[in-house]
């Protein structure tokens, strides 16, 4: 009996230490990840650097968002794609093609396809999912999933709920405790194989918010391929004209 109590104490104490003293409350942390780039509305200027074994290109763009269900992106350069725009309202997505001055609806079958040739899919842009509502999560110390570094970094494993339609079956987040900034995010399939890695870096303050100004997506199955998005300017919660998110704005060439 004595030894049992001792065992009980020994097993509880590290738990109290790790959860109570080192790790921030998990709900708050996951919520902060959800809100990283999100706000009631936002405006951002960014560049997207796509590298493949066959070609490499940089696109610059402006992006507007409202809540989690409306996004508008206009390509500024290169010249061949300048003026192209994507509008997404809820689960629907439209592309404006200035070359043929036409607006094309993206069919559901192509939502998993690449956006502008990058490693970001149309689904990634359309996604209305939040980690808090659509995933179950817990801290993990599984060393096969985490880095060697554990000082000041926590690792969260997220599993999509059965109602969440995604192609991966788990996500592991590495988050710096000091400023709750994510370091990286790894997506795994049902066999436990890595699908893609997203790394976050260059933490900056923009319009009063702290965000990683650089995000890199590296697909695991395509060697030598990556997409890097760099924020050069961002504004949050300044109020946006709702006419931005309309088919007519899509077809205007500003």
């Amino acid at each position, binding site marked *: 009996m004595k030894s049992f109590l001792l065992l009980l104490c020994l097993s509880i104490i590290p738990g109290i230490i790790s959860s109570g003293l080192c790790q921030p409350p998990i709900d708050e942390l996951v919520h902060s990840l959800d809100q990283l780039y999100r706000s009631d509305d936002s405006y951002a200027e960014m560049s997207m650097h796509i590298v493949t074994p066959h070609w490499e290109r940089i696109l610059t763009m402006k992006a507007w968002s409202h809540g989690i269900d409306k996004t508008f992106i206009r390509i500024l350069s290169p010249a061949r794609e300048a003026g192209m725009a994507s509008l997404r309202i809820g689960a629907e997505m439209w592309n404006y093609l200035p070359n043929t001055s*036409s*607006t094309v609806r993206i069919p559901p079958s192509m939502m998993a396809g690449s956006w502008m040739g990058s490693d970001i899919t149309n689904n990634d842009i359309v996604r209305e999912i939040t980690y808090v509502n659509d995933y179950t999560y817990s801290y993990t110390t599984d060393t096969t999933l985490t880095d060697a570094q554990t000082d000041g970094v926590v690792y969260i494993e997220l599993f999509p709920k059965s109602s969440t339609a995604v192609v991966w079956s788990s996500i592991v987040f590495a988050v710096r405790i000091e400023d709750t900034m994510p370091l990286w995010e790894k997506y795994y399939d049902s066999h436990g194989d890595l699908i893609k890695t997203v790394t976050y870096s260059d933490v900056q303050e923009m319009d009063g918010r702290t965000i990683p100004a650089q995000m890199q997506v590296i697909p695991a199955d395509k060697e030598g391929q990556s997409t890097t998005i760099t924020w050069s300017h961002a504004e949050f919660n300044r109020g946006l004209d709702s006419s931005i998110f309309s088919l007519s704005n899509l077809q205007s060439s500003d």
Partner: protein
Amino acid sequence: MLLKLAWRNVFRQKRRTILTLLTMTGGFFLSSFSIGWMDGSYSSIIMFFTNNRTGQIQVHREGYLEDPSIYSTISDYQTVGAFLDSIPGVRGWAPRIYSGALLAVRPRRPGSGNVFSNSAAASVIGIDPAMEEAATNFSDRIVSGEMLTASAADTSYTATGRIVLGKELSIILEASVGDSLVMLTQAADGSSADRMYVICGIVSTGNADIDRNTCYITLSDAQILFALEGKAHEIAVMTASLGTVDELTLDISAGLSGRDLETDSWKTFAREFYNGMKADEDSLKVTIFIIVLVAAMGVLNTILMMVLERRREFGVMKALGTRPGFIIRMIVLEANIMGIISVIAGGILSTAALFYFSEHGLVMDPPLDYGGTVFREMIASITPECYWIPAICVIITASTVSFIPALKAAHTKAAKTLRKV
């Protein structure tokens, strides 16, 4: 002396001989005809399938079949084509470009403006209209509108802006001939490419799965759209006959060595179809084996009867001092003479029947759907297998089945046999 005796014996009892000959000829004819029919119907299915679409041989960049990437191109397809033209047995060749795209059509309701909301993902195949026509008779499958147009020697890369849609795809898009269509895709240089096309035709290949997600533009249009000037992903080669395919594949492969290209026959690139065909063919072979076996039993039966009927005769021969070996040889020779006669007679009969069915064929009603491709007519073919397999069967059966009764006859006790009569 032996041959003379055997020959005379054959014609001594005409009714018995005719009966034996009929059984053997019938056996030969049945086996021969079923082999020719099986061979012909499979050849015609394979030729129909390959002529319609894939060709019998294909040339790709090394590794393209395993991983069909837009970047794995044949960079000098014109040179490869010129080489193919120089090979006897090559009936034609067709260069193709394969990629995917988003197609969108304006809905018919008024006020749609420039919003192309009827959209679908599709495979885009760039074809050289003239060469495709020569190789696969593409225009035969156009069900409305007309074929793409461009000259075979079109190297100026001028866009025609015309597109042919698969029938089911046109239904999904609610599009018909004359409508405008926007295509959005990604070119080989990474840029996003969009172009407007006018639908000039609707095609039905007989395979609904393919027609549901395939559209065709000219090779030059595809080279411009995908930034693949002067390049192709595939060269489909049409051969004059199926029998020479394996040999030609080796020839082409040898001629193209050192170019980082791979040459495959339909057995490789249409592996599923080939395996299906092979499984079917194997089960039919069992049927043919049974037919041959039944024919052999008939031969055994008649020869056994013949020998038993002539026991007294052999008894007399033995009594006159004929050696057993002589009797055995005589009976086996008799059976073989009849075997040869029935092979000749059966050969003439089956040639006539096979020739008729190779010319006229048998119309399938309802048509046979094989892996989505519909076949309407079966024809027979005349191959060496139609003759040598049944011929060997008849001769071997005649020799072996006559040997046992011959052995029995040879060892007839002369006195005992004669006393019985």
